């Protein structure tokens, strides 16, 4: 099977294990993003695939070949570094030609390949320049070009956009997506920015403290997170979480539990679960995305919903959308997204409805209850 496969990968520095039993399978031509907060081990994992870090145990396969103990150069992957790692004393041409020159390819072939890639990346005007004479975005493109010239089996990107300003980042993000469509190679991309992950990935791997939290397409992770961490990490602004507990209900359907929020005692709502139900009195966490909270008139009144009184703090007006930042009586932050609604919320207190069909339920350990 082609692509990249990681099986039972572990990595320890001394006695400290930083990557715990990671299993990921990436098929040929897929764009996979490793995402997680800093220190989650995503870069280490990428460097292990590249061969820049030793693998403590487990198997890494690239294109069906076990490369776990193979040296970096022989794995046939190329990497774009966060710092770009362009050689300052070499011209753009020589930077891009480096790997071919090392492999002693014929001069004509080198020239032809580099010029072709330079054309794709719109660098053909800058081949004689030194990296220091280029803008941030151009340097980024040289770094990508250097990777493409080798025609690797897989591209590895280590936070390639984090040194660019916000506008350029959006632009380069689109260029990388376009490039992936154009050359169709397997790409593994590391970032801490979930927006980058959502926009670029065919498949996202969410990591936390060296363990895989969930693997899936961007919308799968958004619509159906496995746990509270993934639910909170994917989506911007992040999901709101409210504590609640399971209460005994008189006439529940067999697949329903009744949840009472700490913030709204004495009013319980039924939530439908297909899996095992939590025991009564158990603490649960309710999650709801900002865009699913209703203010003003109910959209569909027949829905079950939690009614909540919220104190507004401030509003971020972004034009098409605005985010209202509020606090519950107990001091829990709740963000509400409002679209195409220019009516400014003047009052200090608003009442919000949290429709039960949009609620995510997590147990006290943060695992999803479905």
């Amino acid at each position, binding site marked *: 099977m082609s692509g990249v496969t990681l099986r039972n990968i572990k990595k320890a520095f001394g006695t400290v294990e930083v990557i715990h039993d990671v299993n990921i399978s990436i098929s040929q031509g897929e764009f996979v993003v490793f995402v997680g907060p800093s220190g989650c081990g995503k870069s280490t994992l990428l460097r292990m695939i*590249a061969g820049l870090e030793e693998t403590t145990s487990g198997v890494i396969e690239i294109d069906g070949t076990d490369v776990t103990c193979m040296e970096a*150069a022989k794995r046939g992957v190329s990497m774009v570094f966060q710092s770009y790692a362009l*050689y300052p*004393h070499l011209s753009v041409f020589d930077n891009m030609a480096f790997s071919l020159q090392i492999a002693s390819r014929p001069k004509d072939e080198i020239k032809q390949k580099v010029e072709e890639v330079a054309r794709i990346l719109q660098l053909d005007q800058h081949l004689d320049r030194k990296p220091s004479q280029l803008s941030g975005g151009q340097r980024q493109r040289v770094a990508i070009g250097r990777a493409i010239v080798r025609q690797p089996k897989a591209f590895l990107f280590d936070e390639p956009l984090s040194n660019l300003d916000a506008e350029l980042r959006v632009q380069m993000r689109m260029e990388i997506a376009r490039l992936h469509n154009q050359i169709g190679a397997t790409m593994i991309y590391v970032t801490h920015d979930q927006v980058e992950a959502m926009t670029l990935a065919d498949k996202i791997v969410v990591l936390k403290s060296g363990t895989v939290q969930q693997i899936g397409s961007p919308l799968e992770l958004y619509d159906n997170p496995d746990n509270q961490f993934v639910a909170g990490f994917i989506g911007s602004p992040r999901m709101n979480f409210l504590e609640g507990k399971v209460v005994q209900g008189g006439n529940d359907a067999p697949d329903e539990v009744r949840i009472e929020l700490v913030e709204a005692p004495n009013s319980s709502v039924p939530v439908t679960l297909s899996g095992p139900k939590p025991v009564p009195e158990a603490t649960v966490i309710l999650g709801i995305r900002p865009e699913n909270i209703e203010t003003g008139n109910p959209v569909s009144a027949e829905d079950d919903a939690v009614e909540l009184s919220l104190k507004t703090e401030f509003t971020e007006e972004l034009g098409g959308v605005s985010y209202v930042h509020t606090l519950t009586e107990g001091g829990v932050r709740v963000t509400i997204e409002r679209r195409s609604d220019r009516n400014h919320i003047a009052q200090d207190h608003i009442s919000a409805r949290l429709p039960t069909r949009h609620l995510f339920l997590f147990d006290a350990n943060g695992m999803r209850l479905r």
Partner: protein
Amino acid sequence: MLLIAPFVICYLVVFAYPVYKMFAMSFTDAPLIGEGEWVGLDNYIRMFQNKLFYTSVYNTLYFVVLTVVPNTLIGLGIAMMIVRLNGWVQASILILFFMPYILPVTVVTQIWQWVLDQQFGIAQPLIEAVVGKRVSVFRDPFWAMPMVAVVTIWWTNGFNVLLFVSALRNIPRDYYEAASLDGATRLQQFRRITWPLLWPVTALVLTLQLIMQLKIFDQIYLMTQGGPFNSTYVLLQLVYREAFGRNQGGYASAVAVALFVIIVAVSILQYQLLKARGK
């Protein structure tokens, strides 16, 4: 203006005036202290007719050849080994290599006179193993100058190591990782990344060395006094002998001017060559 006055005054009093005085004296028959009569180019003519002057120029250049490039390369080699160490091990090894540099020259020469002593020097078995007999190195015209060079390299190498270590630390590790992903061997990495990126520092070290080694005097004065058979006689020693030994300030100044011209010419030439190579 007022703020740079202290510097300007010091510069004029202890540098510009003495330098001017040296040039002026080289055209007179002045003794070491006091004024002399104008003699035109007599001192220079005498100098160019003096066989010891040519010997001194030759020996000075020979010493430069023996020290400058080897000292730089050895410094680079040691620095490259040291950067591969980590933490306190790196710091301690660096200190060990730097230690000789803080010793005064008298201590350095004393140590090496013991080390190389023909009777009980600990280096003698090594020399014996190579050439088959013990050698009194400072009394042998063939051995004397190379041994002075060895002592000088041992003494001053730590400083070069320090410069190279800090230059090597400034090369990001990413470059080597990127190169190793591209399949570059250690030798290729050195040739294509380390050496070119280190070049400005290498050029600096070479130039500093060149200027310093052209001014060789202390070690020779303390170890060989120019002997045996003038085989280690260098320019500064000639200046010293004429001025302090024979009370001929004017003639000594002429030799000093000659040394000055050589240093300026050689270092400008070298710096230009190095700059051209760097591009």
